[in-house]
């Protein structure tokens, strides 16, 4: 029961991170992509990446700990995996966005605007 509760906490954490990131990331993506529908598409991709990456890290952490371990230890491991997954996903989104921004700035039409 406790690991399931912690998995719920991880889901809430991922939703909170997405909520905190939505407005600034969407504004940055609109600046990078120029067209709004492209920015919305990449926002969806980023959100999916964050959710799936977090779930993957949490489940990997659960698998590494083992289901037969103490429930509290398992719960803490799931929590730790969720935090690590959120951090890694956030890093991946940031690196991708910065790289896209640099590529956009390097295009000749960007200077002409």
């Amino acid at each position: 029961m406790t690991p399931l509760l912690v998995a719920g906490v991880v889901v809430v954490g991922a939703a909170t991170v997405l909520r905190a990131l939505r407005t600034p990331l969407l504004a940055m993506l609109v600046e990078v992509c120029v067209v709004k529908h492209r920015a919305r598409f990449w926002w969806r991709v980023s959100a999916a990446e964050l959710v799936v990456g977090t779930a993957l890290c949490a489940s990997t952490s659960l698998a590494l700990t083992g289901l037969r371990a103490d429930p509290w230890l398992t719960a803490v491991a799931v929590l730790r995996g969720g935090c690590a997954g959120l951090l890694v996903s956030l890093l991946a989104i940031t690196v991708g966005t910065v790289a896209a921004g640099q590529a956009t700035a390097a295009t000749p039409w960007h200077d002409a605007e």
Partner: protein
Amino acid sequence: MVVAVFAGVAVAGLLASFGVERLLHAHLQRVLTDICETDARSGFFVAVSALTIVLSGALASTATTGYADPNAVGFDLLNGALTQTRIVMVGLLGVVLVVAFLLIGAIRRFEDRHRPFSVPPPGPMPPQHSQYSPAPTAPGHAGSTQ
């Protein structure tokens, strides 16, 4: 007892990471607004920095390294709590240092890009005797007036 102490230290660590983020937020926003040139970029990087600080604090708060014995009491329990607190502080210090170093790099790049004039690098000196400054002639030489 161990679980209660662990949970208490974890919550304290999470609150500490929120406190660090609150402490840095306004200053970070001001610096990033200067560096990033647009509000969208500065807002994005402020949000990413804030989330990184809080998540790193949360990750460090869940370290169970210090609690070797699940039924620990007294000094062992205190030792476990202190180890957990230490890991929280190392995590927060590490993430603040990473943010600071990234910021220093960004400020240097920004200043290089927006320097008003560039001083030419010191190159080789021009030859001492060029066509504009002929070599001094010795007395009695063809070039002299005597």
